């Protein structure tokens, strides 16, 4: 391990240990450790924001190079950079992320001109595109359900039966067909599902603790 790696390990361990310690143990004298931890969170926010900025610079460099060297599909890179910066500029002028929403520096007429443009780009373009892409899942699910969901083994039979009953119970019309569907749906969700989810949650939590401790004490 190099000197830098050692220093990094020390910083990771100290920070992790400090926050874990202040979360569980209250120390108010001679220094209020909870207050120190709380105030240092503001610096952590600045640190994470800087990392986000580095991400944008990196993205720009990679795609700018694609455009400059006319690499295959460079046009997509141009669209990406254009969309990124136009949306960022519009958002900084008129959106919930606006830098000067009250028009102290940016003229109010500019903000008023950008508002409909931003609303159009965000609510009419972005929301519609994302919603459509998400909705396409329904078509794949319908096709996959017909082709892949087969009763081949005992396990797949249990899974298929439970899945079908939950799906039928989830459809409001099922209550008109037979009220028992809702009761079965609720039982599956509350009893076997909860038991399985608890197992997954506890297992995952133990794994995270083990990984974190290993990361902190790894030398």
């Amino acid at each position: 391990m190099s000197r830098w790696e050692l220093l990094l390990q020390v910083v990771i361990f100290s920070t992790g240990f400090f926050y874990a310690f202040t979360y569980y143990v209250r120390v108010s004298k001679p220094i209020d450790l909870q207050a120190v931890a709380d105030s240092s969170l503001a610096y952590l926010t600045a640190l994470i924001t800087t990392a986000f900025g580095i991400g944008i610079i990196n993205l720009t460099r990679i795609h700018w190079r694609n455009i400059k060297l006319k690499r295959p599909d460079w046009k997509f890179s141009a669209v990406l950079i254009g969309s990124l910066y136009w949306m960022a500029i519009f958002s900084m002028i008129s959106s919930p992320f606006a830098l000067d929403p009250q028009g102290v520096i940016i003229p109010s007429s500019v903000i008023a001109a950008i508002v409909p443009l931003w609303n159009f780009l965000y609510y009419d373009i972005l929301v519609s595109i994302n919603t459509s892409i998400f909705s396409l899942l329904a078509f794949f699910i319908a096709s996959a359900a017909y082709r892949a969901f087969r009763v081949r083994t005992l396990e797949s039979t249990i899974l298929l039966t439970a899945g079908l009953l939950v799906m039928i119970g989830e459809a409001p019309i099922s209550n008109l067909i037979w009220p028992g569907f809702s009761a079965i749906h609720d039982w599956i969700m509350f009893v076997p599902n909860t038991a399985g989810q608890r197992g997954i949650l506890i297992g995952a939590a133990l794994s995270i603790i083990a990984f974190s401790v290993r990361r902190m004490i790894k030398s």
Partner: protein
Amino acid sequence: MVKLSLDLDARTIYLLLILVVTVPVLSHTMLPVPISDTTKAVYQFIENLAKTKPNSLVVLSFDYSTSNVPELHPQAIVVTQQIFSLPLKVIFVAQWADGPSLTDAVLDVIDKGSKKYGVDYATLGYIPNVATLIGMTTDIQQFFPFDTRGNPTSSLQIIQQFPAAKDASFLMTFTGGEPGLDDYLQYWQTPFKIPTAVGATAISAPGYMPFYNSKQIVGILISLRAAAEYEFLTNEVDLSGAVSAMVAQSTSLLLIVFLVILGNVQYFVRSRTVRKGRSR
């Protein structure tokens, strides 16, 4: 020998799905929706809070992106409308970058009644990371010096009255995944015992059931259906369009059930035919 030649092409399935979704939506057919316990629990909690602790603080967190709008946005609309009709104060935050814009979209469609911005409600905007989420529990102004409209939070009456998020009497997150409920459970609900509820997509709701059973969360709104149930509870039928979408949801789910059964019948018939062929 029974010969089943009902092999459905993917395009036929897509066409069937389009039909079972569009016909009910265009015909505006409505369906009575039975109210589930998880939805009723959220509704009752908010109603009781307004009666037992009027003018207490509610935090609504919009932790979803534009792709989750069909499932979660109607929930956000009906719950926000209920809260605005009751003597409660609301702070809007978001753990997802799309949240603040979607908050504005909700505030545009609801009836705000006599509620005044800064006094009864405020939009604080985006919570960029866990550090801010933790920090605002003890001091909102330090982590949100300005709201999304550019007002200093120190000038907002609601923030003067409730300077820390730990003062909240109820938290609800409409979440499309991570970050979402898990972070609130760790940093808000567990240390400060803030009653919490979640509005979830159908796919993530089963993962939240253990928290509901252990009473760590007071209730769950599950997908678009919960929004429709909520509209019936609040007598705001079709405020968000959820009720009129229920027939389309029912028919599309029943179509999928039918396709699964049909696929398996064909599978059995084919397997039987192959077995008979081999025995000959």
